[in-house]
């Protein structure tokens, strides 16, 4: 009597076997102590796997109302339909002209038999005008002798072939569901508070990221849970009028913030690694923000602004050194 292989026991416990396979396994199990032990071992392994994986769950999940998804789907469908209509309209114009030519071969100008078929395509009146010059072609006599039923079928076939094909819309790109980057503000998602400089200093103390000596334009704070140091964005203005931002917060939050920005920005404005040649940076990035990030333990320090990368690099190093010494 053969023992039950391990994978079959997995499939058995996972209810992935047919009824007859189950019966076979159960009858063997009833008589075989070693397979019973194997089954118990695998059941335990299976439970442990499930328990381990259950730790890998997102912290919370608030499913939105299904109705809101339905609305989103409906608006996507109508947008798609508008595009399809446009394509269909263009195609029907082509079809009408094409049909007119073909119909002129098949129909005498005043013969009523063709009308029901012509009704299938509302644009036929347009096409007959196009078709008229072809009436005197020699082919007309031959085609006019076709039996009416065959003639109708032929027109139908032509009409079917000429019916506008709906061009499938392009698949939804991930980028299109991201909010476009606004030119004015620094885009932030989640719960943010704009604070006064004094208030922010009271809250974050020495960890408030900023460049000494520059006027502060704005301080934004996102409080994270469990009373940890919040994520802070400090905007300061340079003498030249450019605004630079220093960001400090938990690595995941900061990288998420940057990722959101990078994603909604079609141009790669972040500075490539230092190994990349300088002239690889497109010239129009002069007005675009560059970003320098520095990992500090489980937190991240970032400077972003429309400055040359070596200036940003110098700034972030100084800032990091200052924050360390405090």
């Amino acid at each position, binding site marked *: 009597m053969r023992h039950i292989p391990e994978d079959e026991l*997995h*499939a058995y416990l996972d209810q992935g076997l047919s009824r007859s396979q189950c019966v076979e396994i159960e009858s063997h199990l009833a008589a075989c102590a070693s397979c019973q032990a194997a089954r118990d071992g695998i059941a335990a392994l299976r439970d442990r*796997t499930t328990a381990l994986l259950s730790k*890998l769950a997102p912290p919370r999940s608030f499913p939105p109302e299904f109705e809101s998804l339905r609305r989103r789907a409906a608006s*996507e469908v109508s947008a798609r339909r508008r595009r399809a209509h446009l394509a269909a309209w263009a195609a029907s114009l082509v079809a009408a002209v094409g049909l007119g030519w073909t119909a002129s071969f098949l129909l005498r100008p005043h013969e009523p038999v063709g009308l029901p078929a012509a009704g299938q395509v509302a644009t036929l009146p347009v096409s007959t005008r196009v078709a008229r010059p072809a009436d005197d072609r020699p082919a007309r006599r031959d085609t006019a002798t076709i039996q009416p039923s065959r003639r109708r079928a032929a027109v139908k076939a032509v009409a079917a072939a000429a019916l506008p094909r709906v061009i499938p819309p392009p698949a939804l790109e991930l980028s299109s569901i991201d909010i476009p980057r606004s030119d004015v503000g620094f885009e932030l998602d989640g719960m943010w508070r704009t604070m006064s400089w004094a208030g922010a200093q009271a809250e974050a103390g020495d960890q408030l990221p900023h460049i000494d000596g520059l006027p502060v334009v704005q301080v934004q704070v996102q409080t994270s849970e469990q009373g940890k140091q919040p994520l802070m964005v400090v905007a300061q203005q340079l003498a030249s009028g450019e605004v630079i931002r220093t960001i400090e917060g938990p690595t995941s939050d900061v990288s*998420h913030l940057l990722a959101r920005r990078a*994603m909604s920005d079609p141009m790669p404005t972040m500075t490539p*690694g230092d190994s990349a040649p300088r002239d690889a940076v497109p010239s129009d990035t002069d007005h675009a923000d560059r970003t320098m*990030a520095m*990992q500090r333990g489980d937190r991240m320090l970032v400077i972003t602004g429309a400055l040359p990368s070596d200036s940003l690099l110098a700034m972030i190093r100084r800032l990091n050194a200052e924050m360390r010494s405090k």
Partner: protein
Amino acid sequence: MTDELEQLYQTTYTAVVRFLYRKVWDAERAEDLAQEVFVRALTHRPEKPRAWVFAVAANLARDEARAAVRRKRHLTLLKADPVAQPTVEPAADVLVEHDERVASVQQALSTLTPRDREILLLWDAGLSYPEIATQTGLALGAVGTTLARARRRLIDAHDRQHTIEGSHAAHS
């Protein structure tokens, strides 16, 4: 008007979010993608919605991973040491923070081959053997074999870490 998809949404939304979370490691992103999956389901009306939803979720997560690689190319990450040479750090730094136990499971999961991991996650998301087979192109008979291997490897990798951590603790 409740339809089949709405019922599916009520019963599997959380599982889809969890499935995505284990691929993108970002709770908010996982939710966005899960909603996108159901919006697509509403416009496509697939025949077998449950398997379809997970197939689309897997595709979105793959696209997401590719986009993440592209993004990272544009981000200079520097070491904390101010005198150290700037280097581009790998993805590990950008992962979501979580407590050590979670990290150790995540680490263990990352030792599996992509296919084994995929099948384990699909099983854990509640898909049946035939559904997993259809979605992954695996023979029905091979699902059990793959799951047996994936589970064994996950547990082994996880236990190995704990042995190492344990011995570290003993030394310190």
